[in-house]
């Protein structure tokens, strides 16, 4: 059991968590949307919006937390556009989501230049650093997994449990799930299904926005065009792998992060495997786990379906 205390192994664990956090946050957002019945293909765009807004907010105010708040607001607004299309205009949620992702990729790049110019060198904000928790960080396994994170990551982990609590225990969670499973029944009981879905989407966008901000404010401290690099789509897969359950999403995101952390380390070993096969690892593993362990997962009955008339 020596490896448990090995610093390389500890580093691998810590990296797994760091790589998981942005995807986890977006996946949590996706869970809120989907449990309420809205297919949020727009996570990628919402993340990217959050990444830019977080960076801009933090740069302009020199306050990281202000950046996080701006990222949440911006992500939520991006999600509400999708929500409006899905709920009021009854548009196909898949097209709207993909189109919004395309548009937001352009819009964030354009907005960055409006705000910061093309010719000025890219500025870096002092990003969230891992908190110093002293001896806790040196506990084998748990230390690297839990006690070497930055503040935003703790927020993300807290969000997992808060999400679970909200969805499973609170009245709004109950209402939200009813809107996703049986909106007609919810309606006959006097629930305002459109309002619930708008609310869920706002939360979804806010979480995805923080996920994006974790890229620009924790992972790097800067904004680069399209810096989410497809994590919003990966989050869609992760949330299904996690059976649309916050804890499940945590486990799935950690699995994906661990595979990524592993392949980045495997590349440094003197082994003769083509690098592309190492880079495939997280994706192959996700499929393998889905097929081998998770299997069929049931989507909310009304997922992606527009509400019936009147």
């Amino acid at each position, binding site marked *: 059991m020596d490896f448990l205390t090995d610093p390389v192994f500890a580093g691998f664990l810590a990296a797994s968590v760091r790589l998981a956090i942005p995807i986890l946050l977006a996946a949590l957002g996706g869970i809120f949307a989907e449990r309420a019945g809205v297919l949020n293909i727009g996570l990628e765009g919402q993340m990217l919006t959050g990444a830019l807004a977080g960076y801009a907010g933090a740069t302009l105010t020199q306050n990281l937390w202000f950046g996080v708040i701006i990222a949440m607001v911006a992500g939520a607004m991006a999600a509400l556009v999708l929500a409006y*299309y899905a709920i009021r205009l009854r548009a196909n949620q898949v097209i709207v989501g993909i189109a919004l992702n395309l548009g937001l990729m*352009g*819009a964030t790049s354009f907005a960055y*230049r409006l705000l910061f110019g093309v010719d000025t060198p890219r500025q870096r904000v002092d990003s969230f650093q891992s908190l110093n928790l002293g001896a806790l960080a040196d506990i084998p396994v748990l230390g690297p997994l839990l006690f070497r994170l930055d503040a935003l990551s703790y927020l993300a982990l807290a969000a997992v449990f808060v999400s679970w609590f909200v969805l499973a225990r609170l009245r709004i969670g109950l209402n939200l799930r009813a809107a996703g499973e049986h909106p007609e029944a919810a309606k006959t009981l006097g629930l305002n299904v459109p309002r619930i879905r708008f609310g869920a989407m706002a939360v979804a966008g806010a979480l995805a926005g923080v996920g994006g901000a974790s890229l620009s404010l924790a992972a790097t401290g800067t904004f680069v065009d399209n810096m989410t690099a497809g994590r919003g*789509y990966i989050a869609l897969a992760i949330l*299904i792998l996690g059976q649309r359950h916050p804890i499940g999403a945590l486990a799935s995101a950690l699995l994906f992060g661990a595979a990524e952390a592993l392949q980045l380390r495997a590349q440094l070993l003197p082994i003769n495997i083509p690098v592309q096969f190492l880079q495939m690892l997280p994706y192959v593993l*996700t499929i393998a786990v889905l*097929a081998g362990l998770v299997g069929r997962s049931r989507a909310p009955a009304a997922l992606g379906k527009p509400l019936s008339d009147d």
Partner: protein
Amino acid sequence: MAKHILGQLAAVVIAFALSAVLILLAGKDPLLAFGAMAQSALGSANGLSETLLRMVPLALCAIGISLSFRAGVFNTGAEGQLYIGGVTAAAIGTALAGTDAFITMPAMILGAAIAGAFWSGIAGALKLRFGADELITTIMLNYIAIFFVGFLLHGPLRADGSALAQTARLTAEARLPVLVQGFRANWGIFLVILAALLASLYLWRRTGGFRLRVVGQNPTAALNAGMNLQKITLGAFLVSGALAGIAGYTEVAGVQRRMIENLSPGYGYTAIIVALLGGTNPIGAVIAAFFFAALQVGASAMESTAGVPSSLASVTQALVVLCLLARNAPVLLRNWLARHTPKTEA
């Protein structure tokens, strides 16, 4: 019908008006930009040719996606299937270098189709065997395909002496001929027409298409009516994969003339929008693909001619789609006004 088209037109106009505001914000001239857009996408022989060229992979993927969506299969893996089809076509094309085009071309098409179908079939088999959600598996398979193609191009399939990760250039027999000398549009367009016609006939005139639609809309009813769900579902995966694979072929044989690492700028994903805009109808998919291709070709001309940043080109594309999708908005507005204006009763 006329009203419908008028509505669509109005949507496009609104989208451009919104883009114009952004273009002004970027300090550029919207009229110049839109002029360049129209000119370069449709207003010249070369523009039309470029639009047709770009339409081919979009349409082929979108026809396949339409069929799979109709069968209730949410195949988002056209991108990866396209890469696998493309690399297979290139491998066959270079292996058969010097062979007669009558042999090379069908061999490449068939090879690309089978390879694409195989790649898609993996997701199909995982769904049928393990119930693995194809939304996950196809997205993951896209990444895997691109890494795998990267491996092939860096390793076994790399052209001798090439510094770049790419196959050797295809010889003339292995290429897809152009329609008109001097323009890039090629015979791929015939493949599109053929695929759209066959797919339409299949969907609406063949019993197989009937069953496919039933399975897509109510699998339990299909089961009770004696239909073989597994076969039909797997068939939808295979056909859509084959079409995406052929799209890879047209890119390799008609555009790049070899397999390269970045074969597709996201055709497989854009094709999802195209398929849905086309109402998951094969003919509709072709029309939507033409429209989208024109939009993309035109949008990049805004940059080269009027200096509009490429980021705004994607925003413009998205705005057009979003405005088209907002066709319920006028009704909503009218209802809202009706609710919020006090009734004056006699």
